[in-house]
C-alpha cells in the first residue's frame, strides 16, 4: 500500500544560524495515526507547516500518495487533501461555526446546506457541534472542533494536528482521541504533534521522533515504552521520577481570605477564594486556561488590585499593597510569572541588569551597583549551568531553558519564604523542566511555601502536596495530591464539585504527622 505522505531530505533554515529541519525523512502510511514526538524547538511544527503550505522547504521533496507534490500555499495543501489544525486557532470570533467553516471557500453562501453538511460530518465521527453558535461563545475544545470540521469540510484525507491536547482537560482529551480513532477507521491518515509520552502510547500506531531539527527514527508504538521514547527525544537517559517528600514545618505563611479580584474587562476573575499556604509544602493550582490563575498570582504579589477579601502574610495584611511596599515591609516573596520575557525579565537587558531588577534601588547612592549584580550573575551561571557567552548578553538571546534559569535563579537567590510560580516549565525541554522541579523541591525542603500554577496534571499529581482546582474563578476544592486522580481533577476543572473529601491545610498537616 502506498504512503499518504513521504518526506525526503527536507531541510529548512531560518536566518543563517537556525536550522529548523535538517535532512528529515518521514513517512505517513494510509489510514494510520502517526505521532510526531520531539521537545520544544525540535522542529515538529516547522516540518508540518511545510506539508500544510505555510513554509516552503529550502531543499528536499514531498510526496503525496506516491507523487511528488509542490505545496506553495494552504490552498495547494487542500488540493492534495491535506489539512492542518494549528495550535493557535485561526477563527473569526464574531462568526458562527458554520461561517468560519466556509470562510475562504469559493462556493455559494448557503448556510442551510453548510449546516446540514456540518451535522453530517459531526454525526459520522461523533463531534458535538452547534453550527450556529458564535465562536466567542465557545470553549477551547469547541473551537478546536470547529477547526477540525473546517478541515474535514474541505475534504481532507490527511489531517495534521499541532499539539491538540495542550489546552484540553483529561475528559476532552479522551473524547478527542475517540474521534481520531473513528476518523482512522474511516480511512483518514493523521499526524498528531505532541510532546506528551502517555498520549503517544495511547493514540498512535507509530511514532516518529525529531531532535534538534534532525530525524531520529520511527517506532511501532506497541513495541516501545516511555523511557525509550524519552531517550530518543532527549538524546540521553532521563530520570522521569519526581521526588515527593513530606516536611515537618507547620508555619502558616500565607492566608487568602474571601478574595475577589476583577479581571481586565471588569468581570470577576476570582470569586471569594479561601486557602492557605504553609511552610514546606507545594500547593498546586489546576484549572483550564483563563480560569483566574493569572489574576490570583498577580493579586497576591501586588500587581493586580483586589476587589474584596484579604491576603495575609505571616499575620500581616498585604492586600492592595504595591510590589515596592511589600518589599519595603521586609516580606520575601518571589514571583515567577508565566510571561517570562513580558514580566519577569527585561528581554533586551543583560543578565547582569536583570539580576538587579528588584534590588537596583538598594543603597543610598543615586547609582546602581552593577558590580554586585555581575557577581550574582556569575554565581548563578555557575550554579545552574546557564549556557551563555557572558554576563553582558541580552537575556532574549538565550534559549528558553536558560532564560527561565535566570528568572528562577534570581527569584530563589533572594531567599524567599513564599514562591508564587505560574507555568514555570512552559516551553522548556525535559532536562530544564526537571531541573526546575528539583529547585522547587529544594526550596520546599528548606521550608519555603510554594504556590505552583501548572498545566500538566501528571506532573502536578507527583510534585504537589495539595492541589487547588479553579473553574471560572471559583475554587472547586482543594484535594490531597496523593489521593486524587487525573479524572477527578478534570471533572473539577470543568465545574463539578470535588468527589473525594475536601481537605483543609490543617488536616493535611495532621496527616503528615
Amino acid at each position, binding site marked *: 500500500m502506498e504512503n499518504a505522505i513521504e518526506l525526503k531530505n527536507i*531541510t529548512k*533554515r531560518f*536566518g*543563517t*544560524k537556525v*536550522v529548523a529541519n535538517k535532512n528529515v525523512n518521514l513517512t505517513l502510511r494510509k489510514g494510520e495515526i502517526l505521532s510526531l514526538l520531539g521537545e520544544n524547538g525540535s522542529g515538529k511544527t516547522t516540518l508540518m507547516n511545510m506539508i500544510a503550505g505555510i513554509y*516552503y522547504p*529550502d*531543499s528536499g521533496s514531498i510526496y503525496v500518495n506516491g*507523487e*511528488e*507534490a*509542490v505545496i*506553495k500555499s494552504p490552498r495547494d495543501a487542500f488540493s492534495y487533501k491535506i489539512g492542518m489544525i494549528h495550535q493557535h486557532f485561526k477563527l473569526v470570533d464574531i462568526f458562527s461555526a458554520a461561517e468560519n467553516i466556509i470562510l475562504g471557500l469559493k462556493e455559494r453562501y448557503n448556510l442551510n446546506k453548510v449546516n446540514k453538511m456540518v451535522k453530517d460530518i459531526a454525526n459520522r465521527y461523533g463531534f458535538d457541534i452547534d453550527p450556529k453558535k458564535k465562536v466567542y461563545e465557545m470553549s477551547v475544545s469547541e473551537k478546536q472542533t470547529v477547526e477540525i470540521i473546517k478541515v474535514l469540510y474541505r475534504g481532507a484525507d490527511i489531517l495534521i494536528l499541532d499539539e491538540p491536547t495542550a489546552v484540553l482537560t483529561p475528559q476532552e482529551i479522551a473524547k478527542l482521541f475517540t474521534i481520531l480513532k473513528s476518523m482512522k477507521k474511516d480511512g483518514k491518515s493523521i499526524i498528531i504533534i505532541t510532546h506528551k509520552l502517555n498520549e503517544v502510547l495511547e493514540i498512535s500506531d507509530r511514532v516518529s521522533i525529531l531532535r534538534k531539527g534532525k530525524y531520529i527514527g520511527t517506532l511501532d508504538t506497541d513495541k516501545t515504552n516511555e523511557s525509550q521514547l524519552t531517550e530518543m527525544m532527549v538524546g540521553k537517559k532521563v530520570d522521569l521520577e519526581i521526588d515527593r517528600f513530606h516536611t515537618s514545618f507547620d508555619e502558616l505563611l500565607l492566608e487568602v481570605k474571601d478574595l475577589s479580584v476583577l479581571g481586565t474587562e471588569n468581570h470577576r476573575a476570582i470569586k471569594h477564594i479561601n486557602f492557605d499556604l504553609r511552610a514546606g509544602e507545594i500547593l498546586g493550582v489546576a484549572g483550564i486556561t483563563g480560569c483566574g490563575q493569572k489574576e490570583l498570582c498577580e493579586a497576591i504579589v501586588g*500587581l493586580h488590585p483586589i476587589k474584596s477579601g484579604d491576603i495575609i502574610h505571616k499575620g500581616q495584611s498585604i492586600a492592595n499593597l*504595591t*510590589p*515596592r511596599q511589600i*518589599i519595603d515591609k521586609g516580606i520575601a516573596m518571589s*514571583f515567577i*510569572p508565566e*510571561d517570562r520575557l*513580558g*514580566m*519577569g*525579565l*527585561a*528581554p*533586551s*537587558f543583560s543578565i547582569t*541588569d536583570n539580576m*538587579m*531588577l*528588584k534590588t*537596583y*534601588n538598594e543603597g543610598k547612592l*543615586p*547609582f*546602581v551597583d*552593577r558590580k554586585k549584580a555581575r557577581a550574582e550573575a556569575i554565581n548563578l551561571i555557575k550554579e545552574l549551568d546557564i549556557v551563555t557567552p557572558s554576563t553582558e548578553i541580552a537575556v532574549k538571546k538565550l534559549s528558553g531553558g536558560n532564560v527561565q534559569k535566570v528568572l528562577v535563579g534570581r527569584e530563589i537567590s533572594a531567599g524567599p519564604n513564599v514562591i508564587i510560580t505560574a507555568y514555570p516549565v512552559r516551553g522548556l525541554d525535559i532536562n530544564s523542566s526537571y531541573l526546575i522541579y528539583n529547585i522547587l523541591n529544594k526550596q520546599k525542603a528548606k521550608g519555603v511555601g510554594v504556590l505552583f500554577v501548572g498545566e500538566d496534571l501528571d506532573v502536578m499529581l507527583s510534585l504537589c502536596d495539595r492541589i487547588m482546582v479553579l473553574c471560572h474563578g471559583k475554587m472547586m476544592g482543594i484535594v490531597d495530591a496523593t489521593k486524587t486522580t487525573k479524572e477527578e481533577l478534570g471533572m473539577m476543572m470543568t465545574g463539578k464539585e470535588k468527589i473525594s473529601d475536601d481537605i483543609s491545610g490543617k488536616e493535611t498537616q495532621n496527616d503528615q504527622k
Partner: protein
Amino acid sequence: MTKNKAKHEPLFHVVRRTSMPAWQSISIRALSILAAFLVCCLILLIAYQCDPITFISSLFNGVFGTERRIWLFLYDLAILLGISLALVPAFKMKFWNIGADGQTLIGGLGCVAVMHYLGGVLPDAGVIAISLVVSILAGGIWGLIPAFFKARFKTNETLFTLMMNYIAIQLVSFFINTWVSSGTGVLKPIDTGNLPTIGGNTYLLTIILVAILLVFMSVYLRYSKHGFELSLVGENENTARYAGINVRKVIIRTMLLSGVICGVMGFLMVSGYTHTISTSLVNGRGFTGVIVTWLSGFNPLYMVLTSVLFVFLSRGTSQVITNLGITNSAIQNIVIGIFYFCIIGFEFFIRYQVLFTKNGSKRNSSLVKGLEVKAESKEA
C-alpha cells in the same frame, strides 16, 4: 511539476543578521555617507553643471572656512546636541516626545519675557537668574502636561507633544504682537540681562554647558537608578511594575527632565545669543533631534557624531548655494534629504543580509550550500 517548482524558487532570500563585527558596520556606515556624496555630486552636476570638486570644497569652506564659521559650527552643534540630549531620556523610556521644538521655544519665551519686563529694572545677574528659573518652569510645564495625561489616561504622547508645539508658536506670536507696537512684528534684541560672554566669545559658554550636559546625560542613563528605571519602563511596563517601579512617577519625572533641559536650551539661545525671539527660534531642531537620537541608538556619545553630520550638512549646503548663486534653496533640503535617505537606507544592510540563489538546475542545493558556508564561517 518540476517546471512549476523552478518557477517558485525565489531569486534571493533576505535574512536577518544575528551579529556583525564592528569594523563591518562602521564601514557600511562610511559607505552610506560616501554614496550620499556621490549622488549629491551627480545631481548638482546635472542640475547646475557644478563639478564635484567645487561642491565639496564649498561644503567644507562653509563649515571650516573662517574662524567665525568654525565657532558658528560648534555653536549650532551644541544647540542641536543639547536639544537631542533633552530628548534621549524620554525616548529611552519609549515616550515619543516630538515636542522639543515647543518646549525649547516656550523656554526661550520665558527668558525673553523676563528680559523684557525686568531688564534694566533689576541688576543683570538677577535678571539672568530669574529668566533661567522661568525658562526651566516653562519648559518643564510643557513637558509635564503630556506626561501627566500619558501617565494618568494613557493618551497618545506623539500627538500631544506635537500639538503643544503649535500652542508655543502661537503664544510667541501673541507676545511679540503685544510687545511690539510698531508694524514690523519683529522684537528688537534686548541688551540688558544677557548672559555674559567668555573673553568676548558669545558661543563658548553654551558649548561648555552642553559638553557638561553630555557627560551628565551619559552617566545618568548608564549608571543612575533613575536611568535604570526609565529604561525598564521603556522596555516593558509590566516588567517595571513587577520590579516595584511606580511607572506613572517615572514617566512624569523623566518628561519633566526632558522639558526642563529643553527650557534651559531655550534660555541659552535667547539669553546667550539672539537676545530676542521669533517663532522660528528653534527652527525645527526639535525634529532633527529626533533623527539624531534615533540614528545613534539612544547613545549620547554616538549622538555627538550624528549631530556633527547634520550640522555640517546644513551649514555646508547653505554655503554651497551661496557660492553657486543658486536662488532655489530647495536644493539645500534635497542634499540633506539624500544624506538621510542613504544613511537610513544602508541600515538595512547592517540588520539584514541578502543571499542570492544561483541560476541553473542545482538552485536548491547551491542556496543551501551558500547558507551552510555562511553558518560555518559564523560559528568559526
